[in-house]
């Protein structure tokens, strides 16, 4: 080997919730690991992992306008087209930028971490096929994953009320913490939702409601979704990463880009990478854990020359339905942890929704978890206001912030093989590597479900006292304006499904334990293996799946709950 090569039991590509979880489980089992992260480290001091850094802040410019958490779309653009007929691309730049930073998507998430339901793992069996969609069962059940969900909730620290949601899957125990303070606006819409026969409940949240795991309770600062937490009250993924580094068996290499998984005779032997100074080197390892996210993981396999025809296919987001309205009162959405109430009713088809599906020519449809929320910060609000004499009046009245409240439904997005990530033929990142290209257009299922549930949510919002209501979606499929507010590019950061798992190598890229069929000592530990996307955020499920699959790899069992928390 040339350069600063080192031997590790495993190399982990990506330091987000999946990679950090893998590092935690493997180091606890005595493995030596090297964690590669292409973004910068603002999260934790590797020289003294007990010390969390103080680089996050309540700063709308830094996070919402200047890509502090990366990736910078000039350095690492992605490209987008709705379908192949549009040519190579219709957009170059920001396409669903989950953070590229130590901690990955866990840093910017506001920490809503619901479990999936039992039927999320059995979509084909429960609901049946849909034309032009590749609906599939998972190769495991909710019962298989339940112990690892429980472990994941203890690991990151989840606040929630295990009795509050009648649609929740069964649980082996309560949440580690009680829910945090409910936001005022959410109390209004939750009461209205109950009048409509819905079942709002306290959102399961990976933000401490009480001191937990040596980190303080959340103090409701309001800079939550899209911001790093200045006091580290958000648990995911700092909890796993800190344990891994404290073990002394994990090395964290930030600003280091893995450009190739090295393979010899059907086995991965390590990775090639570029360090912060652009120097090429390789490192050898017995296992490669791929946890770069559902965009970058397939990109790395394609850059490495992997050839399975399904790599990158069945890309899913959430089809978001926004229903917002103006409430008479000021509901101060900037006070609180972004989302404190959700309801799951629209994930469960009933007789009425089945009739609506039939009328639209679909066998069934599902919506998604509905978040009760409003926009928090003034720069975004001001940009929506006009300049001139009216500007200050509009900002004082604050119809678009202090009075704006409503719903975001994270609608289930059916898998379609034509929705995919591949390598752009000409656009490059700053290191010279082809960037990920997204080809995506939603299935009719998503649009029909969105229209159906939007009408219901509008009625709820009127009951809550809204003077006006308006509904829109992201993506906004028939627009070609890729930089405006109504863009065909999904703003959902819930990206899943590009390395489908299953028992049959002909219809899946990785096996039921996350191992690539073609190179089984590569284990995928992010949201790429998901066969279907659910209407719940993917984070807790990808952590639970990583725990299950990495424990299987190293042969350890979960600790008893008392020992784990």
């Amino acid at each position, binding site marked *: 080997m040339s350069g600063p090569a080192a031997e590790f039991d495993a190399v982990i590509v990506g330091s987000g919730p999946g990679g950090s979880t893998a590092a935690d489980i493997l180091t606890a089992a005595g493995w030596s690991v090297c964690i590669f992260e292409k973004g*910068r480290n*603002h999260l934790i001091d590797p020289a003294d992992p007990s010390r969390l850094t*103080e*680089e*996050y*802040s*309540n*700063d*709308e*410019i*830094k996070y919402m*306008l*200047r890509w*502090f958490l990366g990736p*910078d779309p*000039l*350095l690492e*653009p992605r490209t987008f087209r709705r379908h192949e007929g549009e040519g190579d691309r219709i957009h*170059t730049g920001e396409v669903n930028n989950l953070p590229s930073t130590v901690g990955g998507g866990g840093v910017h998430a506001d920490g809503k971490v619901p479990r999936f339901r039992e039927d999320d793992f059995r979509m084909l069996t429960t609901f049946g096929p849909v034309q032009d969609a590749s609906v599939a069962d998972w190769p495991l059940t909710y019962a298989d994953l339940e112990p690892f969900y429980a472990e994941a909730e203890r690991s990151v620290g989840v606040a929630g009320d295990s009795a509050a949601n009648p649609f929740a899957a069964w649980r082996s125990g309560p949440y580690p913490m009680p829910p*945090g*303070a*409910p*936001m*005022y606006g959410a*109390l209004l819409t939750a009461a209205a939702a109950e009048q409509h026969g819905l079942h709002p409940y306290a959102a399961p949240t990976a933000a401490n409601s009480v001191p937990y795991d040596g980190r303080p309770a*959340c*103090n*409701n*600062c*309001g*800079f939550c979704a899209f911001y*790093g937490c*200045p*006091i580290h009250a958000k648990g995911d993924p700092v909890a796993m990463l800190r344990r891994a580094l404290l073990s002394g068996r994990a090395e964290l290499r930030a*600003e280091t880009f893995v450009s190739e998984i090295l393979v010899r005779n059907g086995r991965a032997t390590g990775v090639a990478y570029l360090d*912060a*100074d*652009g120097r090429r080197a390789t490192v050898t390892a017995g296992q490669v854990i791929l946890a770069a996210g559902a965009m970058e993981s397939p990109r790395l396999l394609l850059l490495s020359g992997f050839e399975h025809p399904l790599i990158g296919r069945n890309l899913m987001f959430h089809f978001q339905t926004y229903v917002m309205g103006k409430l008479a*009162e*000021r509901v*101060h959405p*900037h*006070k*609180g942890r972004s989302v404190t109430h959700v309801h799951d009713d629209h994930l469960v088809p009933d007789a009425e929704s089945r009739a609506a599906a039939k009328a639209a020519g679909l066998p069934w449809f599902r919506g998604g978890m509905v978040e009760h929320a409003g926009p928090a910060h*003034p*720069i975004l609000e*001001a*940009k929506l206001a006009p*300049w*001139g*004499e009216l*500007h*200050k009046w509009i*900002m*004082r009245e*604050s119809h678009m912030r202090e009075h704006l409240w409503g719903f975001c439904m994270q609608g289930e997005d059916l898998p379609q093989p034509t929705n995919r990530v591949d390598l752009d033929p000409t*656009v*490059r990142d*700053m290191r*010279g590597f082809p960037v990920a290209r997204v080809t995506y257009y939603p299935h009719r299922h998503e649009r029909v479900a969105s229209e159906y549930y939007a009408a219901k949510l509008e009625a709820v919002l009127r009951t809550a006292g809204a003077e006006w209501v308006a509904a829109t979606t992201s993506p906004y499929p028939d627009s070609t304006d890729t930089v405006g507010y109504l863009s065909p590019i999904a703003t959902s950061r819930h990206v899943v499904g590009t390395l489908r798992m299953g028992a049959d190598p002909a219809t899946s890229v990785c096996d039921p334990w996350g191992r690539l069929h073609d190179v089984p000592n590569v284990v995928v530990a992010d949201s790429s293996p998901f066969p279907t996307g659910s209407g719940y955020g993917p984070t807790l499920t990808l952590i639970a799946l990583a725990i299950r699959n990495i424990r299987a790899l190293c042969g350890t069992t979960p600790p008893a709950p008392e020992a784990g928390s």
Partner: protein
Amino acid sequence: MPVFFTDDEYRVIEAACARMIPADADPGAVEAGVADYIDGFLGAFRFDPPRIWAGGGFSGRFGGTPTFAAFHRLNHWDELAWRTRIEGSLGLPEREWNGPVTGLQERYRAGLAELGDDFADLDGAEQDRRLKGAEGFTPLLYEHVCEGMYGAPEYGGNRDLAGWRYIDFAGDVQPRGYSDEEVSRP
């Protein structure tokens, strides 16, 4: 003293700020130092570290050790990105791996030319007419005016918290945060 604009350009930017967010009983964009925000952004690399990302975790306005004013150091790639975005690619091969990039500085110089050297001395109605005519520039300027008015004051604008005070927004509240009562009550 502006670090990027000439004094004459700075006067034009201030005059445009006065039309976009005028003073009334409360300060407007001029009084809030929005022109300084824009000048500091376009001239970010006149500072060391460059004024791109303010520090963390606390400003000191609600307790904690004030660190916002200590801007983050940029690594090699960050500097490449922000120099390219602000200065443009200028024909430099290392900035043009995906083709030429027009910098913000160039867009401002073109926009200022469109508004005219005499802009600051015109009456308000004519200033508004020219702003509306500068279709490629005015939306960009307005975005930056909003950032300077309502962003953290460490970036040069929002002087004396003028942008936050008049809309009754506390801004960065860490490490105090909000009490449970403040979150859950009207």
